């Protein structure tokens, strides 16, 4: 029986790109090895300490299976909250998250941001990566290049001072876990 389990484990590893176990820079939790980090098709994350109910998807860049992005959308009352992490390499690793700039969108270092939208086309605020905060990362734990499934976790701290009193000046997205099929464009 033990051999059987070993055979299955080896077969699974053969299907899944091998992920290094190198110690990520900012991780505090042990990496789950044999169990899914979260259910396939889901993302769980805390937004300012509270579970964020949002729908997520992942897509490859056009004609490029080497990079992908993750986008999530939730509603707070009737405000739409739209979060994205772009420029994610499609391979295992632990990556720092940096602030979006004009010309760093193709450097294989993920960038994150979150917009608050009222009724389709009215942007109330946009939150960008707070460069004064450490421990901002996106880690890909498993990447299946055959079935295009990715698992990992992330954490980022966003800033966006605002005059709207009902909006916070910063957004912390912590304990993020994703397990998604990456769609081709």
């Amino acid at each position, binding site marked *: 029986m033990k051999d059987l389990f070993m055979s299955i484990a080896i077969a699974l590893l053969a299907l899944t790109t091998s992920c290094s176990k190198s110690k990520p820079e900012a991780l505090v939790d042990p990496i789950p090895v044999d169990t899914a980090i979260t259910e396939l098709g889901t993302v769980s994350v805390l937004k300012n300490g509270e579970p964020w109910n949002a729908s997520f998807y992942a897509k490859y860049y056009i004609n490029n299976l080497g990079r992908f992005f993750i986008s999530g959308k939730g509603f707070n009352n009737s405000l739409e909250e*739209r979060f*994205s992490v772009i420029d994610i390499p499609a391979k295992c690793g632990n990556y720092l998250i940096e602030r979006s700039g004009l010309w760093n969108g193709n450097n294989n270092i993920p960038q994150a941001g979150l917009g608050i939208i*009222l009724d*389709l086309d009215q942007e109330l605020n946009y939150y960008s990566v707070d460069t004064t905060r450490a421990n901002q990362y996106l880690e890909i734990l498993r990447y299946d290049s055959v079935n295009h499934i990715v698992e990992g976790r992330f954490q980022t701290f966003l800033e966006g001072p605002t005059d709207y009193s009902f909006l916070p000046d910063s957004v912390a997205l912590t304990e993020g876990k994703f397990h998604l099929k990456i769609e081709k464009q």
Partner: protein
Amino acid sequence: MFAQFFTEYQSNQFQWPSGGLTRYQKLQDTTFSKSVKIVSTEDVRTAQSNGLLSFQLPGDTSTLQVEASLISEDPTTAFIWSGKITSAPGGYVTFIYLDGKTAGFIHSGKDFYEISPIDSNHQFLVKRNNDYNGSGGCETEEEEPPGDDDCLYEPSDNTCPALITVLLILTPEAQDSIENKYGSVDLFALLGQTSVNMAFWNSDIPNKEIRVKWVTKDSFPFSPGLDYVADLTTFKTFAEPERKDNNADLVVFVPHVDYEEIGGYANLPISPDPARAFSIVEINYFLNEYVLAHELGHNFGCRHNWPLDYGDDNTDVCSHGKRYIPLGPNPQQGPIHDIEGSWRTMMAIPVDPEVTFIYTFDGLDYSVKIITNEVILHYSNPAVSYEGEPTGRALGKVADNAGRIRNVGCEISEYDDVSELAVNFSMTDLCTDSVIFTSFITAPTSPLPGVAPYTVYWFWNTTGIFGSSQQFLGTGDTLTLLAHPECPVYWVKCAVVSDDNVVVSRIKKITLAQVPCSCNEEERPARGREVPKSISKAPSFSIFPNPVAQGTLFVQTDEFLSLKTVAYKITDVGGREISNGIPETFSGSILSVPVAGLANGLYFLNLLLPEGTQEIHKFIINKTY
């Protein structure tokens, strides 16, 4: 004769200029076109008569009557003529002439036509496909977004002059697309500019104006999923050098891509903020859905409509748009009401005519479908009506986008602290004995051209088409008129010439009451703007020639015997007496008044009648020698 305003050609009867046939085929192929016709359009400057224009569209026997409301000579040397369609079903018309080419749009009821130049004599007349395309998110949400402050509504009388510079930044592909569809980016930009300025005019937002510039810039780093939220943030950094170079207050990204769900997207600041002065507007919605005017409205802080008006935004601020939902007399609560004749102001959102929703009116709920869904070129304003219905709401769910724009326009015009030479002018209450026109000159920031000292020239006419027909009124920073030169409508032009010979001008329509001139209220209440002045009664005399080019003004009457006792007095526009005397008999019932010593300008002949009454006639000295 008016049927000749548009002359239609068949494609095989036409000598195509280079690239013209390709443009024609592309316009026909796009789903945004319902039809594409080849026409030759008469020049509105000669086709109009006293600001009025009538014409028929090709293939349509109904005649559209248009009354000019906004005419301007753009600093780019473009001539712009905009008017409202006064015949059913209503709408708006704009013609622009630039570099020998003609462009424009005709918004007649639910139909929208775009006119783009083929060559100097021919144009495409494109009927746009404005069918509702089912964008999501338009249904009323039960939840309310949080508010920031209460709507403490006070009508705004802020009339400070503001020239707001709007910069369009195009991708190279967008420039190609616009040139294919509209023939010229300059004309495209001017049409957008006119749509906004026309909306300001229609909405009683006086002294506010936008000026649109454009540049093309390549290498915009689009987000991988065409995420307009991320792209707008990137655009702020991307646009920074061009914004500075072009002294722009508001900046609009015009990309070639088609973002899902939207035709535009904009910063919505809670108060004026130069860091939140950006928007995205897609080419296909820029003009015919007035999305440029809509998104710029967001940059001013204007919001969509209340749930009451079938919108999503229940935030308690005053600057909402409005949808008019005519429920009809004695509505029943049970059946679904198909609402015809509904319209929405610029900031209100379109709706799906297939969706039934609950409309609460006078405390009762009704099931309705919005069958007609027309946007009117108005920002909401409780003091301005459209077809007899206020376009805004001053009580309850307050809707006053115009008040917001009035209040923040000047601050937004100062986002960029570099000014170009600009002129505006105001006038005192038109119902007082004398009307004072005052020019406001914005001196340019050094080292831009247009330096002081300035000479201000004033002109008037009845057509708004200045040039050869303009009548000189005088010079000076202010101009005082003792009476209006024409009633009920005339146009005044204020032209400023700088020391280094830069010329800028401003044309305004002066609308008095309906004939006869009196101080009656206009149908559309206007805060502090053109209200009528009484100046005339049935004249006993006539004068000729007018303008006077030689040294004598003649007075004619049938009452020959009374003439012998008539005296006269001539005053200038400032009320100063220039001369007086007894007119000499020229022949029969005609008297002569010597005016050889008068300089060019507007004067008033005051005839003193035997019974002690007076009669005033205006006349103009226009010496050409």
